[in-house]
């Protein structure tokens, strides 16, 4: 029998390759899956060795997380929603206007943009010290408003850069034509450009939502009991008595899963988003 060596080689290589992909996917998913199933385990299944892979699922952890947690998970989730919604509502329009002015009119000749981008690069822990002192003076500690302000501030640079890239992709003829036909600069922006850039706005909104929702450090330091957010509440399961793994997993699941849905929506734009629009 004639061995067509090359073909078998190729088949083996292909199989190995797909196998490797599967391994990578599995490694990526494993911790998340583990967290997910742990949240459905009874305490006895959680605190055992060897760890259980087959078990009887229960909602106990979720119930505990919502009823007995301190700070209350429901409050945290509500706060996260409020802060997220307000931040996005502020960030998207403000960044769209600013990004447009940079993209089309080169306001500030690039220097302003530069300064704004460096803001994003501030290490949170370093930046927060003056804010802590100032908000304390203003009595805004443990208040949702202070978190909205800070999140807006730190999401703006990213949003502006992302939208800047989107705006630059639109050819200028359309706006010029609109202006000749009777639009003001703002009118052209509103009537012609914004509809064309709707996907970009959506992507920006989603990214801002993800960043704000996951934001831990500011929320942790600036809140005590009333302005806690979801990540802070999850961390709250690490109590003095020890870590309550079951409810913690449940809370973590609730905290993380919504973001997965968003990830699915923006997976096409992730690279672009996280490299500030530099890589498409």
């Amino acid at each position, binding site marked *: 029998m004639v061995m067509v060596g090359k073909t078998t080689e190729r088949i083996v290589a292909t199989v190995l*390759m797909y196998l*490797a*992909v599967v391994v*990578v*996917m599995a490694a*990526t998913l494993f*911790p*998340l899956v*583990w*967290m997910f199933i742990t949240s459905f385990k009874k305490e006895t299944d959680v*605190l055992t060795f060897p*760890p259980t892979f087959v078990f009887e699922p229960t909602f106990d952890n979720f119930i505990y997380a919502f009823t007995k947690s301190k700070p209350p998970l429901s409050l945290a989730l509500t706060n996260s929603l409020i802060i997220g919604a307000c931040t996005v509502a502020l960030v998207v329009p*403000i*960044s769209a*206007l*600013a990004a447009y*002015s940079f993209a089309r*009119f080169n*306001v500030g000749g690039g220097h*302003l943009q530069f*300064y704004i*981008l*460096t*803001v994003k*690069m*501030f*290490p*949170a*822990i*370093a930046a927060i010290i*003056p804010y*802590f*002192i*100032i908000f304390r003076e203003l009595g805004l500690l443990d208040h949702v408003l202070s978190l909205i302000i800070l999140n*807006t*501030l730190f999401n703006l*640079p990213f949003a502006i850069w992302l939208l800047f890239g989107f705006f630059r992709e639109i050819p200028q003829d359309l706006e010029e034509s609109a202006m000749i036909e009777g639009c003001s*600069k703002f009118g052209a922006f509103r009537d012609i450009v914004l509809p064309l850039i709707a996907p970009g706005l959506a992507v920006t909104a989603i990214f801002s939502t993800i960043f704000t*929702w*996951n934001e*831990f*450090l500011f929320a*942790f*330091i600036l809140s005590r009991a009333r302005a806690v957010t979801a*990540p802070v509440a*999850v961390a709250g399961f690490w109590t003095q008595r020890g870590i309550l*793994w079951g409810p913690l997993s449940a809370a973590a699941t609730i905290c*993380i899963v919504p*973001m*997965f849905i968003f*990830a*699915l929506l*923006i*997976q096409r734009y*992730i*690279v672009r988003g*996280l*490299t500030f629009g*530099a*890589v498409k």
Partner: protein
Amino acid sequence: MKIDKEKYMPWIMASPALAIVFSLTLYPLFYSLYVSTRSFELTALWKDAFIGIENYRRALNSDLFFWSSLLKTILYALGCLSLEMPLGLGVAFLLNRAIKGRRVVRTILALPMVAAPVAVGLTWRYMYHHEFGVFNYFVRLLGITPPGWLTNLNFAMISVIIFDVWQWTPFVALVLLAGLQSLSPEPYESATIYGASMWQKFRYITLPSIRSLMTIVALLRLIDLLKLYDAVYALTRGGPGIATEVLTWYLYKIGFKFWWLGYASAIALMFQYLVIILSVITIEKMAKL
């Protein structure tokens, strides 16, 4: 007035953003500078006095903890980078060949990044648990005695690094994948005709093309690694002892546990400017792309 509005419209459009950014960054910056020159402690307000650059001098000259935390930060960053870059590149290559299910793959790879680090970090803490953790289960199956992932002085840092590698290698992979996919196939085709091996193609065609992209990714990661906080909080809280006390953690400790806010401000400012310098370099490289 109507004409004026039209002419200044660009500035009017940028003004909300500029107002927010400038008012919220400049004032705190100057305030921070001011506080850093004082011996300000929140729990000992009577100590507040002007001391000039004393805080800075103390940090740079006599604070061993500061330097050790800086060292740990650098070690941590280098450790992560040295793993994330090659792994990311490898995964990118892998995915570049395997075309099917790209959407699914991209979504899955995106998941670690969109999960709140604190939340996932605590899950990893559970997995690292010496008794109930699933990692030890597998390791013991292989017949090896598991290390104290988070309790061993030497291993703790490695465990944190592993976590970061898990969370951010996908990012590196996705960015490099995008870069690889933008390369044209022609140089490869002619190289194949000339009989070049896989390794040769990689070294002489691929690497040079994505070099600038790799630099940018490395810089972006570096900046994020320097700012690491959430993972340390979730996994080790700086421990055991100060084995994983990176600069951000040290800053947190002296600022919000000891409440030495004056001293902390000084360190914070120095840190901030280090990061900004790196950022400037990164931005310039990104602009050139």
